[in-house]
């Protein structure tokens, strides 16, 4: 087994983190700017969509998922899938009350 895979991923440089940070800051600015405009029911959806993009960036780059073994990605995917299922079931219940 190589030292690389045993001790963890080494693939990230300083610059990619700074780029991701810039993207996160810009997306924060966009969320704040967009919140002022009224899209009606789409306002919340837009905010959540931007938050999801930010989360994706943090998970893949800051939390190293991009260079992590496949099993980690499957784990996180399954966790989020069940979270999503829960919220869909919850709202399908409340929407018809």
């Amino acid at each position: 087994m190589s030292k690389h895979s045993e001790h963890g991923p080494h693939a990230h440089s300083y610059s990619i983190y700074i780029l991701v940070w810039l993207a996160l800051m810009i997306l924060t600015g966009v969320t704040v700017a967009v919140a002022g405009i009224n899209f009606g029911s789409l306002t919340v959806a837009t905010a959540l969509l931007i938050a999801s993009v930010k989360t994706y960036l943090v998970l893949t780059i800051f939390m190293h998922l991009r260079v992590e073994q496949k099993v980690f990605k499957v784990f996180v995917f399954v966790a989020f899938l069940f979270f999503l299922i829960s919220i869909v079931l919850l709202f399908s219940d409340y929407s018809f009350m």
Partner: protein
Amino acid sequence: MSVHVHEHAHAHVHRDDIGGRMGMWLFLFTELILFGGLFFLYAVYRFMNQEDFHLAAKELNTMIGTFNTAILLTSSLTMALSITAIQRNSKKLSIFFQIVTIVLALGFMVNKYFEWTTKFHHGIYPGSEELLAQSSGQILFFGLYYVMTGLHGLHVIIGMVLIGVMTRFTAKGIVNSDSYVKLEAAGLYWHLVDIIWIFLFPLFYLIT
């Protein structure tokens, strides 16, 4: 390779860094359930009290919220940079980034302190007469606000302590360029705290 192993046979300590990181991820999933439940609660109550939530959210200061978001995102950056630094054997740089992370986290909590005390001065806190006089939807909004940002704040404090311990470990050489899984685990925790805030921020501060 076998010669290499033989040479280090005395110093060999069993280590499973992948297992260590996986354990941390499993813990983070329990955090997802903890905060997830609160987000579900928020979603349902907001769905049932839309007008009241909009009204109540006007009390929150978007400026402080945005500023705190920027602080937390930047602290996530410095945390990630500290791991790259230790991977490259720059011990001092790694310690520097870790200390910057702690200072930024402290800044976040100071802002939070002023934000909460201002609310308290306005008479808005759980169980206050002023709040109880408002509609049930507004009471729910502030109840959720205090519980969710409070629990998040607690996580920030725990994160600060954790990173502080890591800084000591790095200084003593327990965390080094060959073995830094502890620092990575602290980093994973810190990024999760960041992700939770990424959702808390628009859901509480940006409903107008």
